[in-house]
């Protein structure tokens, strides 16, 4: 009994802070989402709207298009990050000259703030002035992210991969370092080939780590704002106006707090559903493999 009280006492400061900075703002966003609140409207205070904002959202083509673009961006970035991260982690587990140096520099992008990443990539790619368009032009590629929607999209994908693959690699490295050697040695003694070891020992044993990395990356990619905002501003047109940027524009420049809050809540719900679906599919696959 006493130890339980002590535990709660020790946890209390953390729980209070979490409640203040995590739970309360969330409850507030939920509350605002059920209201009309546009500070430049004739009636500028909170006006109860019930579920009107959510009803409108379901048919809001711009929001749905932004969500679709965000999803497409997430699929591209996260799948490449996971594969690259796994390969790099595997590589960095091997002993070779300069491994320590490479391990250190490959994590450097993680230390850079997203806004700075976006600004740097903007300088690299700015049409007419950046080194990337300059050199690509030399080899006959007309690269202009201010004009080509596809080039802008894939440049944001590339930037995000560059920035966040090291996070996946480091997560996998931690997971790989903790794996016991015995199952691998046993499999080799039994004559398993590299693919069999990878498929039947390595992947299942690393699954918890893979899931953590996957969910974190999905959440991050779906919410992305700052680095893409700096690089393309959501353009050209609406080509890179991902859902995070769309929400930001509705909440801040447009000052439509009620509708923006509803969008945020719906995005959170969407992320939870995506992750839950993924978890269900993976678990189901494992169950089927087991039977």
């Amino acid at each position, binding site marked *: 009994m006493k130890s339980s009280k002590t535990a709660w006492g020790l946890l209390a400061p953390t729980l209070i802070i979490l409640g203040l900075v995590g739970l309360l703002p969330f409850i507030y966003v939920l509350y605002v989402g059920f209201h009309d609140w546009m500070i430049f409207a004739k009636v500028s205070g909170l006006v109860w709207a019930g579920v009107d904002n959510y009803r409108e959202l379901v048919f809001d083509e711009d929001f749905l298009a932004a969500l679709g673009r965000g999803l497409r961006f997430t699929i591209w970035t996260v799948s490449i990050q996971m594969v690259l991260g796994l390969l790099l982690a595997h590589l960095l587990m091997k002993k070779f000259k300069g491994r320590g*140096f490479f391990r250190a520099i490959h994590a450097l992008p993680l230390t850079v703030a997203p806004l700075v990443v976006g600004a740097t990539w903007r300088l690299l790619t700015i*049409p007419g002035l950046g080194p990337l368009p*300059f050199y690509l032009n030399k080899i006959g590629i007309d690269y202009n992210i201010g004009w080509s929607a596809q080039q802008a999209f894939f440049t944001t994908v590339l930037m995000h991969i560059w920035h966040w693959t090291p996070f996946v690699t480091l997560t996998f490295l931690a997971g790989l370092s903790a794996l016991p050697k015995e199952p691998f040695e046993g499999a080799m003694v039994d004559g398993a080939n590299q693919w069999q070891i990878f498929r039947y020992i390595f992947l299942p044993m690393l699954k918890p780590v893979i899931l953590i990395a996957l969910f974190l990356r999905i959440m991050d990619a779906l919410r992305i704002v700052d680095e893409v905002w700096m690089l393309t501003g959501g*353009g050209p047109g609406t080509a890179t106006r991902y859902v995070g940027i769309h929400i930001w524009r509705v909440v*801040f420049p447009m000052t439509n707090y009620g509708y923006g809050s509803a969008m945020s809540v719906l995005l959170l719900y969407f992320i939870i559903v995506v992750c839950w679906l993924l978890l269900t599919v993976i678990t189901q696959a494992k169950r089927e493999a087991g039977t």
Partner: protein
Amino acid sequence: MKTYWKLVIPITLIVLVATVLGACVPAPPPAVEPPVEEVAPPAEVPTWWAEAAAPYKGVTIRGISESTPPSKYVLEVLVAPFEKETGINVEFEVTSWDEMYTKAIRDMEAATGIYDFVYIEQDIIYAYLAQNFLVDLTAFSEANPNLLYPELEMDDFTAFIDNFKDAEGHVYGLPFEAFLKVYLYRTDLFEDPEIKAAFKEQYGWDLRPATTFEEYRQIADFFTLWGKEQGVELWGSTVQAGSHPAAFYEMFETIFPSFGVYNWGINMENWKATTANGGALDSDRAKEALRYWVEMLEVAPPEARASTWDEVAASFAGGRAAQGWVYGENAAWIATDETRSAVVGKVGVALPPLYEGVLDDAKARRGYIGYYDGGAMGIPHSSKNQEAAWLFIQWISRKEIQGDFAAKTARIVRTSTFDDPLVKEMDPKVGGYYTLFKEHGDLFKGAPPFPFHAPIREVILPYILKAIAGEMTPEAALDEAAKAVDAELVKLGYGQ
């Protein structure tokens, strides 16, 4: 020894890569907003300031503004002498346009009192007044006569101050910057005999600043081709078409008015934008204007599609465009500062090209030919140091500092400044910008008095960006935008 090589190899690699990139990349245009040259305050500081500020000595006031040449001038030239004279500390945050609005509006809306003075751009004042964000400075100065600088001379402010008054004529902000968005052109190109002859041969008229849109396009076409033939990086016109509200502003406050589409195409009597309801946003003229502007990208530098007002100024200063629509606050440094501009002494200023009848509309006050931009400094109700803030905003509006301020940053808010010797000396160097400002400023106008400026801009912006990117035709974009504006205005409580 091993550690030594561990350090040397990566450092050498980094230096090599940086050198190669630096050497191969074409020189970028000069920095967008380099610091304004520091100068001593030109006039003697009256002791009145020290006496008036005595009760507030040690107080710290905080303000926020957009990072523009005038704001940087205030920060770098005017703040320190104020602090020295009054003992009031000033924290003046000069930041990006987006961030300035986000921070200032959030602060005033939540009444947190972080900022004691804020930049009020002319286009947002109506929204701020509607929300009662600002202190009535007329009433405030009447209530605090001891804080009213005796030589403030309110009558000396240009008519621009009227934008910051309410229906009763009470002032809510003291103007500190005002300028025109003008037509800049390269005099060295326009006056080159060989170029003039080639142009006349091709188009049959003498090369000079365009007065019509057809002429403007012909000039743009000519110089784009000429640049290609000469192997120089020169294009026909700047275009402010980045994925940013700047694209909206160039279209709605520069191109539309000069095509004769005023007040964003919104009927101000019934708050409707569709032609079916008396608006003009989806009118044939508006569509013609948008198509013209979007097609101008064909003869603009590649960076035009990523340009805001800053990059437009930088492109022109970098000698990459023969002509363009450029905010006047940049005219001075583009025309005179060799450390930042490649076109010093080569800048001409003219009225923008106009659609037939627009000049007559402007003279008869039925319309306007372009954008008269600027802003004032005001005090939020939430400020906890209103007295000290009031002293500071008077300090930066003093008559005696206006000459140097105007000569350095091409902004004028007082009538007397036009006759200041420094401004007169600067005028020919800036292609007669100040004379044009004085003589034709009344043909330009600020943003329409909409209390819903930002939300409606955000409704329209995606359609303009889609037209720029080719996702929609200009015609379809304006059809959709007009419908969206009508719907949004109803939501905002207008045009029911």
